[in-house]
């Protein structure tokens, strides 16, 4: 069982990482954090969590590997096509009246979601007046996101997702195939800023019309989820849109009553108060 000792070792590890590197995993959801920490222990060929603490404190290379492991960067283009369809149908009409649209993708990982949104906005004629701020706590994934190069192997799946998302063109219209890679059009990036931001330790940096934070807060405990929802509330304009992952909600947060559910399945909310 997850013994008292294991709980203690994990607490010491996250405390050590926070104090030495300033990266705060202390309020991540225990069950999944524990699993990923043990994956690191094994990958580093160690046998205890305390040995991992010793290593990451003295070896920045192993800290970088740990950061990649702990931050779960799995993502895809047009993941949940129904979400993009709902966004086209319910959110786009609201955005049309705005002269300028500010969007924040929090926890954007390697950018697949951001390019998907850029394509959607382009097709809806809104991209020109949009500015997308795409942030993540992990510099390595941001560097990849800026390149806009994805594996060709994924394009079959993405093409299918895209088709189901309310597509107005072909996905291949947006990229060049080069050997094993798909290079997405530079122009999709012209209104995107990829930047470092940690949801736990960094504050609000602008006022947005849309905030997307999908499948990021599932890795946080309830307390941290509440504090991130306060950050989003403070960063969202009145009548702005908040989009969460399909299995996330505002339940139990301080701001549950301040939003209207625009799409109960796709978890799209509108700030009312």
């Amino acid at each position, binding site marked *: 069982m997850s013994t008292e000792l294991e709980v203690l070792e994990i607490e010491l590890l996250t405390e050590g990482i926070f104090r030495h590197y300033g990266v705060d995993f202390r309020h991540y959801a225990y069950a999944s954090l524990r699993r990923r920490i043990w994956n690191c222990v094994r990958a580093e060929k160690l046998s205890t969590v305390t040995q991992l603490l010793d290593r990451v404190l003295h070896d920045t290379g192993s800290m970088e590997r740990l950061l990649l492991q702990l931050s779960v960067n799995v993502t895809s283009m047009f993941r949940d096509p129904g979400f993009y369809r709902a966004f086209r149908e319910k959110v786009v009409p609201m955005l049309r009246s705005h002269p300028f649209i500010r969007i924040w993708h929090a926890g954007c990982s390697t950018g697949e979601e951001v390019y998907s949104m850029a394509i959607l906005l382009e097709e809806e004629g809104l991209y020109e007046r949009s500015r997308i701020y795409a942030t993540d706590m992990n510099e390595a994934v941001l560097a990849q996101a800026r390149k806009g190069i994805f594996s060709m192997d994924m394009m079959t799946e993405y093409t299918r997702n895209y088709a189901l998302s309310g597509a107005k063109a072909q996905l291949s219209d947006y990229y060049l195939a080069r050997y094993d890679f798909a290079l997405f059009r530079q122009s999709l990036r012209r209104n995107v800023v990829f930047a470092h931001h940690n949801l736990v330790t960094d504050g609000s940096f602008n006022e947005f019309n849309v905030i997307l934070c999908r499948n990021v807060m599932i890795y946080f405990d309830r307390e941290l989820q509440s504090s991130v929802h306060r950050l989003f509330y403070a960063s969202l304009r009145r009548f702005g849109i908040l989009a969460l992952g399909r*299995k996330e909600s505002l339940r139990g947060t301080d701001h549950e009553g301040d939003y209207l559910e625009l799409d109960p399945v796709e978890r799209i909310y509108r700030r009312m108060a």
Partner: protein
Amino acid sequence: MQRAMVIVGASLGGFDAISALLSRLPASFPWPVVIVQHRSAEDTADTLQVMLQRLCALPVREVEDKDPIVAGHVYVAPPDYHLLIDRGAFALSTEARVSHARPSIDVLFDSAAATLGSSVVAVVLTGANADGALGVVRVKSEGGLVLVQDPATAESPAMPLAAIATAAADEVLPLEAIGDYLSRLAASRM
């Protein structure tokens, strides 16, 4: 009453097997039942939940992030997420597939064993792969109980066979007997 939890893993042929199991549980069944059934990421219409609810006396719910785990409820993993047991609540993860599966039976079983130790009752049903085999070893090593569907009664015997091959199984039971076995077990531990 001892706090226990039933965790169930199923793959190919799983819908019928889970139906057979759930339809035998009385409305008074005292433990939570948590199910991972392999399915397509696109199967997002709550169909599994709706269909299982029709034949189950207990409330059936597709899990959402941080749902509390309530006794006498049946929970199914949502498509395309790993389902983990945390202290008193569920956790979801979009981590990479484990042995081609998300949700993965091993991930559920491992987290349940880590959180609840000997209070876990694991059930491996029909399937065409070996998911759950590592999980039952983990459950067993923490003192939990492992039940496996008799491969002869499985639409697809590979998964039960893989679980049996680990030597972690306490009981190998025909499909029709599993629900009743769980009910008796729960009654005896009350």
